[in-house]
């Protein structure tokens, strides 16, 4: 039974055109194609794909790095700008302080100068007044002496005379001190 079946099977294969030489030829064909394609197409291509992927990866990484460093630089610049601004602010503040101080000093100086000027003026005025008073007194003494000579008709010893007047004047408010209130004191004649 079995050999008949087998024979039928082989006959069937033959009818379909399957035969060992053709089959082997196709197998060898395919193997050759596989080997050659592997050598000439797949391997180099896969290697190149890997290489390309690696390069793209590298490129992406480099771009990423560049981006990061750019961001860092930006940050640096920002920080520097900020610092510069702060420094500028500080400088301006200092300058303002200095200016204020100078202004203050100038004020002070001016006030002092003015005061000194006023003081001197006051002193001068005082001196003027003193000398005016002294002149007036002298004039007045001379006038008084003359008047007294005329009235008395006799001439006093001019020295004694003068001394007398001086004494009188010393008692009067015109005596130069000016501290005493002039009220109630009339120059004696």
């Amino acid at each position: 039974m079995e050999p008949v079946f087998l024979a039928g099977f082989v006959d069937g294969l033959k009818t379909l055109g399957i035969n060992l030489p053709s089959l082997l030829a196709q197998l060898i064909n395919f193997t050759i194609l596989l080997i050659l394609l592997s050598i000439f197409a797949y391997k180099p291509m896969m290697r190149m794909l890997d290489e390309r992927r690696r390069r793209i990866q590298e490129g992406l990484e480099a771009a990423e790095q560049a981006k990061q460093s750019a961001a860092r630089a930006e940050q640096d610049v920002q920080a520097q700008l900020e610092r510069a601004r702060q420094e500028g602010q500080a400088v301006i503040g200092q300058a303002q302080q200095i200016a204020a101080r100078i202004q203050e000093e100038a004020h002070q100086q001016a006030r002092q100068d003015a005061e000194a000027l006023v003081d001197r003026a006051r002193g001068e005025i005082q001196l003027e007044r003193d000398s005016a008073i002294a002149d007036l007194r002298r004039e007045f003494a001379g006038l008084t002496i003359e008047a007294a000579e005329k009235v008395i008709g006799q001439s006093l010893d001019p020295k004694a005379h003068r001394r007398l007047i001086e004494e009188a004047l010393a008692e009067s408010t015109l005596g130069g001190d000016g501290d005493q209130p002039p009220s109630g004191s009339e120059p004696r004649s």
Partner: protein
Amino acid sequence: MKGIRLRLVIVGLIILILAGFVFLRGPTPHIQIKPETLYSFWKINITNTMITSWLVVALMIGLVFLASRRWELVPRGVQNLLEAIIEAFYNLVVSIAGENNGRRFFPAVATIFFFVLFANWFSLFPIFNVIGLGQEEEHGFVMEKVDLGPLPATYVSLSSPSQLQGQTIDKDDPEAAQKAEEERDKGNFVGEIRPFLRGVNTDLNTPLALAIMSAIFVEFWGISTLGFFAYGRKFFNLGGLLRGIRRLSPSQVFQGVVDAFVGFLELVSEMVRLISFTFRLFGNMFAGEVVILMFTFLIPLVLTLPFYGLELFVGLIQAFIFAALTLVFGMIAVAHGEPPGAEEAEAEVHKTQTTESQLVGSEQ
């Protein structure tokens, strides 16, 4: 304007169809499952499919060689095209099988794909099936003879309105011998054509060879990944049965029988796979060839074109199916049984347990 042009095109096509129908009708095609033998050396018959197959291989190698003399990082021209195709297929394989398996499987799967694809598409060239060696017989085509220098040539003359078909002497015609004699007396040639080129996959040997290669690769991947015995256990799974018998546990024996039967089914399916691979490809391509031959015989012009388009599609699909099935079977072979790494995980658990017990021991 557009309507007129469309109408002109339609009229032209109809005229073409009619002219073809009148003048280009050939003789009744002779369809044969076996590839025709062209030459015989010693005991080996060189068939036309063998020759075509060599031609296909040579062309593919030539093309690749031309493109790949220098694989450059920035591709150009033919290299660019080939590379785009191969890369697309590579990406497909990797996306199906994963990075590691994909890389391993790729050369075989791609070679199957491109060989089948190239062979299928190549066989659509009109030089296929119509040019060949004449073989004088009592039946077959009636052809006229001409002398082309040293080579005697015969050809099928154009059909005409009076003779709407190429002359054929039917094999089953009882008067075949007589008719052939008459034609020979007229100086004509009577016989079959053995075409030089015939679609590679219309010869059962080629799909069978591809299926065998595919099976070899699948088994090879399985064995090299899982080891010979682990892979063999998939088919001869008697461990559970023996264990059940030893323990005298009916349920385990039953389980073991089921496992063994499943293994047997796997083995059978492995064989059946071979046959289904073979006949799927052969059937599709042979049918395609017959359809094109018949339509060329019936309506020589224009209306055959849709079938060429169909055959382009079928050729691609069959190539893809063959390759993809190989890939999938490879993945099944590689990832069979317990998920890979289960044993390792078990070993890991075992190791941690021992270290724990050691720790406990050292503490004591």
